């Protein structure tokens, strides 16, 4: 293993060692602050390492990993997201009586899994990443043991995830059976030779899609989303919505481009159907949803649909669009869930619409930033979401995939309704009496408040001056 390999793979090592370090420190003494500190520090260090250390443009660690711009970009993105999630988690878990410390280990491990996905170029690394992610997620979802719903969500996720990964594995096996290789690139080579896919191959890809579709929560593998989102503790929910999906999207993009699937109508067609279905089902499910967590879950389904529109459109622009939208979507989602955590109190999460009644008059700033998040989700200008959507539409138009673009437009029109519905409720005049604040020093809230504020500002900044971000993405994607 060369020095270069070591340097490239270092980010993963850092995460792993952080997890181990936390393990030790717990065994020595349970101290939330310290653990929290370590987590933050390690994630930060990892990110800094990633951005500072000069590594060659594209470095391949045979046979498992490839470190190219795309991978690095997503790696950084995931790390930052995980960081902000960790910061939000502190206040949330501080006020809950369960043992908090192990959560951070799981968080870091899950992040590790997601990161592995982004740089994997081989079925084995894919599988490893996916499973590290899943297994740690099982326990994260069910982390609040006292909560019935938490466990229910956990078990549901576990069974379905296991089932879907069985599908995934079987699909891999089939592909391996046909092609004799588990490496994306060589599979691509094999495929490019033949113009008509053999049936086993199709089955293989189909099963693969099942597995990945489940993780992305696209229709028809979306049903778990709402329940799990609702059951899981808020930080975990946002992790599900962002990091885990982000990792898988990155993987999907890589796999798809390397086996250049857009050549095969069967694959493209299948994806098109799934995407359209996801957009519609997601939006319609969210339409009159009373529970904000579930609502965001459903909206995430449709947002995945939007992302995949650009993904299908493909091309340079499409790739940029995906990356940009991921960023925008992550900022927005983390922000939104962050505000939910911020509003939640000791015994229950603030998840029902009634909790938001008249929020504008009780907590103007929170409400303002929350509506900024919602508007971004709806894709209204001045927010990152708008530019993201613009990017996607641009990608779609440039590759003239009119069907998808039209569907996208129709759906964002539908989507408007439930986002502004929340805003409307926050505007309602009648004040409900402010429930007694939880007995915590506000200093704890400083962290989450701070991070929410940062996210809001980032949201608006990217919305108004997206150029830096675009430049960055371009420099990463096509050096």
């Amino acid at each position, binding site marked *: 293993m060369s020095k270069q390999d070591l340097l490239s793979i270092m980010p993963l090592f850092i995460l792993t060692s952080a997890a181990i370090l936390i393990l030790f420190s717990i065994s020595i003494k349970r101290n939330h602050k310290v653990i929290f500190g370590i987590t933050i520090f390690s994630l930060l260090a990892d990110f800094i390492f990633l951005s500072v250390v000069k590594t060659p443009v594209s470095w391949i660690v045979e046979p498992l990993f490839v470190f190219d711009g795309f991978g690095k970009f997503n790696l950084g993105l995931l790390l930052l997201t995980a960081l902000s999630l960790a910061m939000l988690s502190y206040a949330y878990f501080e006020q809950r009586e369960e043992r908090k410390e192990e959560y951070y280990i799981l968080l870091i491990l899950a992040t590790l899994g997601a990161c592995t996905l982004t740089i994997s170029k081989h079925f084995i690394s894919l599988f490893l990443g996916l499973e590290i992610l899943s*297994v740690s997620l099982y326990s994260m979802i069910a982390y609040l043991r006292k909560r019935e719903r938490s466990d229910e969500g956990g*078990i549901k996720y*576990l*069974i379905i995830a296991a089932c879907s990964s069985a599908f995934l594995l*079987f699909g891999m096996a089939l592909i391996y059976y046909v092609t004799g290789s588990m490496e994306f690139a060589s599979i691509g080579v094999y495929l490019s030779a033949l113009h008509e896919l053999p049936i086993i191959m199709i089955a293989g890809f189909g099963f693969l899609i099942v597995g990945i579709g489940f993780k992305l929560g696209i229709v028809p593998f979306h049903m778990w989303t709402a329940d799990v989102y609702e*059951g899981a503790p808020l930080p975990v929910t946002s992790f599900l919505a962002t990091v885990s999906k982000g990792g898988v999207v990155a993987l999907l993009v890589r796999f798809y481009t390397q086996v250049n699937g857009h050549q095969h109508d069967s694959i493209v067609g299948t994806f098109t159907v799934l995407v359209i279905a996801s957009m519609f089902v997601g939006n319609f499910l969210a339409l009159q949803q009373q529970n904000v967590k579930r609502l965001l879950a459903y909206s995430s389904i449709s947002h995945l649909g939007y992302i995949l529109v650009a993904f299908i459109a493909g091309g340079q622009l499409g790739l940029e669009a995906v990356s940009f939208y991921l960023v925008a979507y992550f900022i927005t989602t983390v922000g939104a869930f962050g505000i939910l955590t911020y509003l939640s109190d000791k015994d229950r999460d603030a998840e029902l619409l009634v909790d938001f009644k008249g929020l504008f008059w009780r907590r103007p700033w929170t409400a303002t930033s929350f509506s900024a998040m919602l508007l971004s989700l709806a894709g209204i200008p001045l927010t990152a979401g708008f530019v993201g959507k613009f990017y996607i539409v641009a990608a779609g138009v440039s590759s003239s995939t009119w069907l998808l673009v039209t569907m996208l437009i129709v759906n964002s029109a539908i989507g408007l309704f439930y986002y502004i519905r929340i805003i409307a409720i926050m505007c309602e005049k009648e004040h409900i009496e402010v429930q007694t604040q939880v007995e915590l020093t506000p200093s704890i809230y400083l962290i989450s408040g701070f991070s929410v504020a940062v996210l809001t500002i980032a949201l608006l900044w990217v919305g108004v001056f997206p150029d830096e971000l675009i430049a960055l993405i371009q420099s990463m994607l096509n050096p």
Partner: protein
Amino acid sequence: MTTIPAEYGLVLASVLFMLGLISLLIRRNIVFMLISVEIMLNAAGLAFIVAGAKWSQPDGQVMFLFILTMAAAEVSVGLALILQIYHQLKTLNSDEASKMKG
């Protein structure tokens, strides 16, 4: 000596997979569901081994090992969860665990 054609292995694997899937669908008891998932996973593993044998590569078996490990981890977490569920619901009927809907 006669070698079994790879297709047979694959067919066996798929049959196994199907069995697992069906039992997963028809069983209410969470423990049994977990077991059927394991069956499916093993079916996948078998498929890998068959494929590996076909191309006479080690990768298939490597993969199988990974699958075993993963399955073990999964089961352990799963059982822990099932215990929790049992504490709360006093039943292992998965249909009972449907508080969240809509």
